[in-house]
């Protein structure tokens, strides 16, 4: 076996040094390399989307129009949404951390369909190229929601290119989803029963089910928009005999479940990090695991809560409101269980744990403000105001992005074999937390005061809070740029991590860092419960040292 496990220079052979040619990356079927390809791609899109946010936050410093024209402003927030949702948030955890970790965590040598996995990245790239082309030819100005009949009959922007980009990228989600589902079903190590799976796997499994079931709805909806825009076939535009509310039903039937595509994997990441840094099993494991499934199921039934003032029947509104309150319960279960997991632990506040705790706080606020929006009469007032902008950024950025960056730090040693510099990590985590709150908390107040979203110019009384928000955004930007530098630095200079720097449980820590091309030298066998952490033993070993 030694000939397989070492390179000619005598180093341990791992997935990174298994080949250095461009070809060895572009034609790889190794899930770990594909994860890296995805990581680079979505990082690029994250900063493109972030640059747009920077521009429109600067524009919003003053009530008047001063930096960009109304049309440019509308394109900026539209493309920010399109890029962040479909080219960052949706693939963020499943396609990077998920791709890298799912086979490792279940004790498999790769995904079930390695070539499909590579194809998903190429498809994603193709969708991304359409999106970049769309930006170059002038952008899209419909909002990320493509509401009809504006998008089909009135917009003078590159709607078709935007739609094609999203349509194509959707297939990459489906492929990743299929891969994760089949891998979890078929490639689990001996002894790794469903209720011994890490919660990260449960979360990504639930996410994959949503991706596979919901994404086709988005695809067909976008095709219908294109058909109406290009051929004038009336589907959504009343001037052609269509129904504009039909579009909203179809769009949100995908896009609400897509919210859970974006947050569930983050919940999985947080469960792993809380357990590892509190050295305690996740409290109520089965409840946390099954709540992911509950969210995936009920999440399909709440789309109408985006339409309480759309002209939808008020009785439909009442049903959707009821279901939206129900879907909040499994999220609440997770928050309470994570909190309880800390009790009796041996807690270390390393960078990943700071992100995990930040996630719990911000996700709690994001989730609870979701109840305000589910409350029919309050939603009438705050719908389409900055309140909703703040709410979904608390979930998407305060929740998902915190979990993603935290997870990136937590598994960085596994990805690269090196540790990131701890103090820089903590400083960025704290900057991001405060920058985030300063950016988005004022937007809750702005929204309740009545400032509508997607406004290029605004009434003067809204300025103070907008200035706070922009100031926060600049801190947030710094917090996001730091890790780029120190993580790159750590690739060569970081301390060598060893297989398990956090002394964490889970199969991914039982192989070398970085892992060998086929993950495990020997087929791992699982005989115990997940999260077999022992705070008492940790404390004792600490005293012995």
């Amino acid at each position, binding site marked *: 076996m030694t000939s397989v496990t070492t390179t000619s220079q005598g180093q341990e052979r791992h997935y990174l040094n298994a080949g250095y040619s461009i070809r060895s990356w572009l034609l790889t079927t190794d899930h770990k390399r594909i994860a890296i390809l995805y990581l680079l791609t979505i990082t690029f899109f994250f900063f493109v989307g972030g640059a747009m946010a920077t521009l429109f936050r600067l524009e919003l410093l003053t009530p008047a129009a001063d930096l960009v024209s*109304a049309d440019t402003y*509308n394109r900026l927030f539209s493309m920010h949404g399109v890029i962040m949702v479909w080219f960052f948030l949706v693939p963020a955890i499943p396609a990077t951390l998920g791709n890298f970790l799912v086979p490792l965590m279940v004790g498999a040598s790769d995904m079930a369909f390695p070539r499909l996995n590579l194809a998903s990245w190429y498809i994603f790239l193709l969708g991304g190229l359409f999106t970049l082309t769309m930006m170059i030819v002038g952008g899209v100005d419909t909002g990320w929601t493509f*509401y009809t*009949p*504006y998008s089909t*009959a*009135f*917009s003078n922007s590159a709607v078709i290119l935007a739609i094609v980009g999203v349509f194509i990228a959707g297939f990459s989600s489906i492929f990743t989803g299929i891969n994760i589902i089949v891998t979890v079903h078929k490639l689990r190590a001996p002894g790794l029963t469903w209720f011994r799976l890490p919660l990260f796997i449960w979360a990504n499994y639930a996410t994959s089910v949503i991706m596979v079931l919901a994404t086709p709805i988005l695809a067909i909806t976008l095709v219908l928009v294109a058909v109406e825009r290009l051929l004038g076939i009336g589907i959504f535009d*009343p001037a052609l005999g269509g129904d*504009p509310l039909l579009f909203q039903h179809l769009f949100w039937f995908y896009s609400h479940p897509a919210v859970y595509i974006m947050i569930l994997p983050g919940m999985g990441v947080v469960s792993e990090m809380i357990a590892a840094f*509190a050295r305690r099993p996740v*409290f*109520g494991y089965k*409840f946390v695991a099954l709540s992911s499934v509950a969210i995936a199921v009920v999440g399909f039934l709440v789309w109408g809560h985006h339409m309480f*003032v*759309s*002209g939808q029947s*008020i009785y439909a*509104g*009442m049903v959707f*409101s009821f279901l939206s*309150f129900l879907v*909040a*319960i499994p999220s*609440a*279960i997770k928050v309470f269980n994570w*909190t*309880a997991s*800390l009790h009796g*632990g*041996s*807690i*270390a506040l390393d960078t990943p744990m700071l992100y995990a705790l930040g996630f*719990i*706080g911000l996700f*709690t*606020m994001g989730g*609870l403000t979701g*109840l*305000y929006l589910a*409350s*029919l*009469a*309050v939603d*009438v*007032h705050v719908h*389409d105001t900055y309140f909703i902008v703040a709410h979904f950024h608390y979930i998407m950025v305060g929740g998902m992005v915190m979990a993603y960056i935290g997870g990136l730090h937590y598994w960085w040693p596994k990805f690269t074999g090196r540790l990131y510099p701890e103090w820089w990590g903590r400083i960025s985590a704290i900057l991001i937390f405060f920058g985030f709150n300063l950016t988005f908390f004022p937007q809750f107040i702005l929204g*309740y*005061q*009545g400032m*509508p979203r*997607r406004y290029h*110019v*605004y009434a003067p*009384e809204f300025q103070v809070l907008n200035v706070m928000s922009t100031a926060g955004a600049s801190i947030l930007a710094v917090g996001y740029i730091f890790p780029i530098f120190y993580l790159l630095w750590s690739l060569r200079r970081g301390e060598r991590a060893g297989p398990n720097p956090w002394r964490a449980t889970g199969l991914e820590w039982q192989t070398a860092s970085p892992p060998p091309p086929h993950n495990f030298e020997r087929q791992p066998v699982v005989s115990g419960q997940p999260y077999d952490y022992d*705070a*008492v033993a*940790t*404390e004792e070993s*600490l005293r012995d040292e």
Partner: protein
Amino acid sequence: MENIPLLPDQASTFAADVDLLFFALLGISGLITAGVVTAIVIFIVRYRRGSDAPRGAAPINTLKLEAVWIIIPFVLSMGIYVWAASLYFQMFRPPDDALEISVVGQQWMWKFQHPEGQREINELHVPVGRPVKLLLISQDVIHSFYVPAFRIKQDALPGQYTTVWFEATRPGEYHLFCAEYCGTDHAKMVGTVIALDPAGYQQWLAEQDGGPSVASAGEQLFLDLGCQSCHRPPGAAAEGQRRAPSLVGLFGTSVTLASGETVTADEGYIRRSILNPQAQIVAGFRPIMPTYEGQVSEEDLTALIGYIRSLENGNSENE
């Protein structure tokens, strides 16, 4: 307006109710957040690595606690649900005696017409202390009529009426915003709602050059378009060889269609029947009415509806 308020003005009968519900939510969510954050802070201090706090084995049976934090949030959220839903129900059930104002949204302005015929753009004068019902429609894309001080919002859709109502409680000038993104100058599709005391509103009405009332403008259109030749002209003889149903007393009643369905003859029904007459044929009549699509504007439709509505009062003809 008040100075840098954390809440917008409360200027409608709904405002205080919505705010109360909002504060209830703020209280509940504040307590939950404070509870979670306090627990986290206590745990990370007490159980920081290396502290001497006692740490037992991890609990195995968590069912009781789980039940507590499933049932309590469920009960609380159901309470909020019922509260919010009943208030919402009121918001979309206008009283019968409401003053009806028609609203047409278009890129990028709001057009209003009062029952007596007065028109305004981007300014809406309303009386205080009287329910006002808005009949909204859009000429192009979706817009949304939003008055933060009244806590009401309703999308204006192309091709389909929507309604919302409010009762202003305090004279003053309030922001009117378009809340649904509608293109380039979405942010400039704003206006002012001016709430006046009843006498002030009457005076304002009198000062306007209103032209004919909505109903009489509609009557004129009804004649110009030749509707009366089938739908019984004003003052014409009663039952004869009827080619089309009578419109007298029609508004608000339920109509049996040739398909056997029944529909309520509301604004939307009349609108559809003018623009797409073949879609809902009244039982007992032949589908012979031509479409008026393209011949009547949104304002014309409002006028025709106003006229047909006025017929229920029996002021234009006698059965």
